[in-house]
């Protein structure tokens, strides 16, 4: 596990819907995932998030196991992986609470999500900023420019 030791890069957790959207619909989520592969920020993923991505890509999008593994292998190569600690109870919605748990446990700066129902309305939890792919890309561009 990687601890928060440097101010030179943003530590960012991606929600499953960002990765799924990147692959099924492209757009801004694709740019967010692409930037993770370029190591423009330090990626954090949860075991719960990886599992959700895997299930959706295989069962709903019906991509082949080989294609799903190819994308996940690339993400796992650049990511720090955490399991939900069970320490945080922020919201009632269990699945989204576990996403928050991972981001907080990993001491992330940002949680990027498209979830308008439970996560984006929170805006901030402690030092963790919760924002959409578009807002995060603007933050990342500014961060890269100024560091």
């Amino acid at each position, binding site marked *: 596990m990687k601890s928060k030791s440097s101010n030179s890069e943003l530590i960012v957790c991606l929600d499953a*819907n*960002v990765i*799924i*959207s*990147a*692959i*099924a*619909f*492209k*757009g*801004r*989520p*694709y740019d967010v*995932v*692409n930037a993770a*592969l*370029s*190591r423009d920020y330090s990626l954090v993923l949860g075991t719960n998030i990886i599992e959700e991505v895997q299930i*959706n*890509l295989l069962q*709903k*999008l*019906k*991509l082949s196991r080989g*294609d*799903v593994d*190819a*994308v996940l292998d*690339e993400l796992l*190569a*650049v990511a720090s992986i955490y399991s939900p600690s069970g320490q945080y109870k922020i919201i009632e919605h269990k699945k989204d609470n576990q996403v928050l748990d991972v981001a907080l446990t990993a001491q992330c700066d940002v949680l990027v*999500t*498209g*979830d*308008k129902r439970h996560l*984006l309305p929170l805006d901030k939890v402690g030092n963790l900023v919760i924002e*959409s*792919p*578009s807002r995060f890309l603007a933050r990342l561009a500014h961060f890269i420019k100024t560091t």
Partner: protein
Amino acid sequence: MPSAKTITISLPVAMAKEMSVVAREEHRTLSELLREAFRQYNAQRRLKSVAAKGRKQAKKLGLTEKDFGGPFEK
């Protein structure tokens, strides 16, 4: 079997010079720098290829963001 293969590549002189400068700045060898550059290139290539298949599948199956718990904020 050896775990690394040595290859010879040719680069424009200016690029080779720039690469040496970057390697020095980042305290990396030229081999490390090229390995990382290829890793990134290939990772993005794989993402692009799978995302092209993903969009094709979503269209074919008539899937929208709603089918994945959306609509999502972009």
